[in-house]
């Protein structure tokens, strides 16, 4: 896959860091606004009505009208949109129709779980990618490189849900050593802090492996590419010329210089991470954003769908911004003016 734009195109034109920051922030804000608007109208264009949620219950027409009024669904769409925006401006995401509690509360509950899963997955992903990527980059085209490249291709080709199922099959059924769902054991409260941490780790292992392995393939290729590129630069040649050992050149100098694009890649991988987390959380009953999203979509919980989408977009845009800033920091022209 091609490189994301923020890696190829950096800040141009405006030389001041403050101006650059301001411009990027404005752009990010506008983007978020566009996403919010788009998703709002998309959700409301769907056939049916959010009060269909109550259709399964035996409420009468009058009760239903009461509810529609209560949730503001009887107002014109434009007005609903403006009210939603106004609330949003005050940091209000509204009430979940199905759970009848603030969307913000649900987000706040689910986010830490997803963050933890993402951390575990990133550890797996970058652990594998760095180790194998650098190993492959030592002798491009060599036997190890060929094998690792093929392996990475196989990994990027796996359906993420299938990896997850196969891990469950292997480690929870055939050789039942790890828990296949949830974040903690039932009586985790009664354990010592260390015991609780160990318990959490055991639960985290399979989901992070599933998500991490899925993402590792493409990252591995990226690491390999950037290390090969760095190894060809004058800087490395100079290091070699100073008589440093090849291993030291590779691991210290090569890696250090490949690090910036890697962090950028990381910041830009949020969408993929969230996509994978959605499936992983559903399979492992991990109580995070993905599972919440799935439930919200199934119950047509419009405010919750909007809140979750907006929040995910926020995270992704934040990642993009981060990547841009890193790019700016690494760009000598910007640095000069700082």
């Amino acid at each position, binding site marked *: 896959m091609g490189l994301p734009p923020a890696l190829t195109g950096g800040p141009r034109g405006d030389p001041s860091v403050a101006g650059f920051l301001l411009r990027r922030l404005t752009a990010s804000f506008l983007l978020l606004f566009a996403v919010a608007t788009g998703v709002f109208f998309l959700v409301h264009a769907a056939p049916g009505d959010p009060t*269909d949620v109550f*259709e399964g219950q035996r409420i009468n027409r009058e009760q239903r009208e009461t509810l529609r009024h209560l949730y503001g669904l009887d107002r014109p769409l434009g007005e609903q949109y403006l009210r939603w925006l106004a609330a949003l401006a005050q940091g209000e995401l509204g009430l979940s129709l199905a759970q*009848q509690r603030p969307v913000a509360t649900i987000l706040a509950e689910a986010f830490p779980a997803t963050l933890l899963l993402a951390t575990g997955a990133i550890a797996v992903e970058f652990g594998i990618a760095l180790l194998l990527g650098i190993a492959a980059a030592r002798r491009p085209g060599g036997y190890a490189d060929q094998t690792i490249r093929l392996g990475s291709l196989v990994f990027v080709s796996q359906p993420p849900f299938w990896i997850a199922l196969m891990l469950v099959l292997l480690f929870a059924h055939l050789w*039942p050593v790890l828990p296949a769902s949830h974040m903690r054991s039932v009586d985790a409260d009664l354990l010592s802090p260390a015991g609780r941490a160990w318990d959490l780790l055991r639960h985290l292992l399979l989901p992070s492996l599933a998500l991490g392995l899925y993402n590792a393939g493409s990252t591995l290729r990226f690491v390999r590419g950037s290390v090969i590129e760095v190894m060809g630069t004058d800087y490395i040649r100079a290091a070699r010329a100073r008589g440093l050992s090849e291993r030291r050149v590779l691991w210290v100098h090569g890696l250090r210089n490949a690090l910036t694009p890697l962090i950028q890649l990381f910041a830009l991988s949020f969408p993929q991470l969230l996509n994978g987390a959605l499936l992983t959380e559903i*399979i492992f009953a991990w109580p995070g954003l993905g599972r919440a999203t799935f439930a919200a979509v199934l119950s047509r919980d419009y405010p919750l769908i909007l809140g979750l989408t907006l929040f995910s977009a926020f995270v992704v845009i934040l990642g993009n911004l981060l990547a841009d800033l890193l790019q700016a920091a690494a760009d000598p022209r910007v640095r000069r003016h700082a």
Partner: protein
Amino acid sequence: MNRMRRLPLPPLLLLALLAPHLAGCGAREEPQQGGPAGDGTPQRGGTVVTGWTTEPLGINDLIFPTTAVGSEVHFRVFQHLVEEQPDFAEHPATFKPQLAESWEWSDDHKVLTFHLRKNLVWSDGVPLTAEDVRWSWQAQVHPAVAWDSAYMKEHIRDVEVVDPQTVRFHFTRVYAKQLLDANEGLILPKHAWSRLPFEKWRENGTWFFENRLAAGPFRIESWTAQQEMVLVRNERYWEKERPYLDRVVLRFVPDASSLTTQLLNGEIDFIAQVSPADAKRVRERPELQVIPFWSNLFVAVAWNHSRPLFADAEVRRALTLAIDRRSIVETLWPGGTGRVGISPLLQSVWAHDKTLQPWPYDPAEARKILAARGWKDGDGDGLLDRGGKKFSFELLSNAGNQARNDAAVMIQQQLRQVGIEATPRILEFNTLVADTRSGHFDAAITGATIDTSLDLSGNFHSRSIQDGDNFFRYSSPALDRLLDEAAGQKNIADAAPLLHQIEHQLHRDQPVTFLWESQRLAAINRRVHDARPNLQSAFFHLQDWWVSPRP
């Protein structure tokens, strides 16, 4: 408490949502199958961990759609005036005192007086009185609360507080379900919850959790969404020496098969319902046990009578004959956990006519009937047609209900053998309800629970086409008369002959094709004693459960 009728879903659709993890009412084999009962004296203390595939939505069940697990929790935390017993296999269901220790009728049968127990207190020490009963009724019928079972209160004119222990229900008319309707809905804490105006209730689902109280045997200690809820003993519960357990943990695991794995690993002690395949794994373990009981649910294909395709009773009978219901039951409910459905009055109910036999699987006869009605394969494409139109329709079922989706797949194949094209389509539950209610459907696999009052009007009376659950639009004046007459009996036991006539007419008319009745299989670790999961509730008399210490 007549659990299934209390579920605020239309009976015929109700279990579409809950099955396969439903709870229900009425029972045949209560705990006698050597249940994990009675080897020794009950011991106090200990924790039982239970596993569920769904999760409660909130603490106040007036404003939340009911889920099976939600009711289990609500009914342990709050209570009813009287408790309906799961004993309607041999005779009509009976009632036992709960918050009310006795009740009596006025001579004209329009006033029902309850006498509350004297020692009732909420978990915060405030007495529970007749004021709470009256206020709970006010909440139930308040328009802004929009309780989905409010219609059950439509014949109650007033609830009058006579003294702190005495409360009177005034009815506008005399009918069979008066006690059930008065008893409907839990008694809620007025002193705590009236602080939030009714108009604000639906905006503050979490407020009730923050201001939670209990009058039942347990109170809610903590609740972590999507993970677990912990119930602990309510020390102020009125029943002496109860409950035995210190804690009951509810774990929420959406995936049924990993739930079973946790039971096998000993992480979980109790699952309210396991699949037949999982039950097999459970039975292989000596420390575990499966407790089966027949559910109060019948599952049927509802044919939309307003479509010309299904307007003819003979054609519907041909469809029934063309569906190999035994094969469906053997495949989906192996090991005798299901049986072919015959009638809405389940084979485990006292009023069922045991002489009635299900229609057999007879595709040849089905073809003959259809041919006699003009349905022939005129163009040789393997599908029946008449007047240029093919016998082809969409068969709906709801997402998440594996057995019904599976049945649709099997029915599709079986009907193809006689030249009928049924295309299965899976919809979200709410969408399915919306589509069937409005009549925009051909056929749908739905489930319904029967009520201990055995009143089938809600499903089969022509007046229920408008505002009931006769969404398949079956209309028979003869049946309407029978239904009205049966419901008008003051004593339901007298209705038996009428109920038999109703069964026979439904059997002839096949307004729906009854597919199966099935067992619910509760799975439990033998360290838990005196558990009696039954149709009323999986947690029935949770206060009586006790555990041996973990080995």
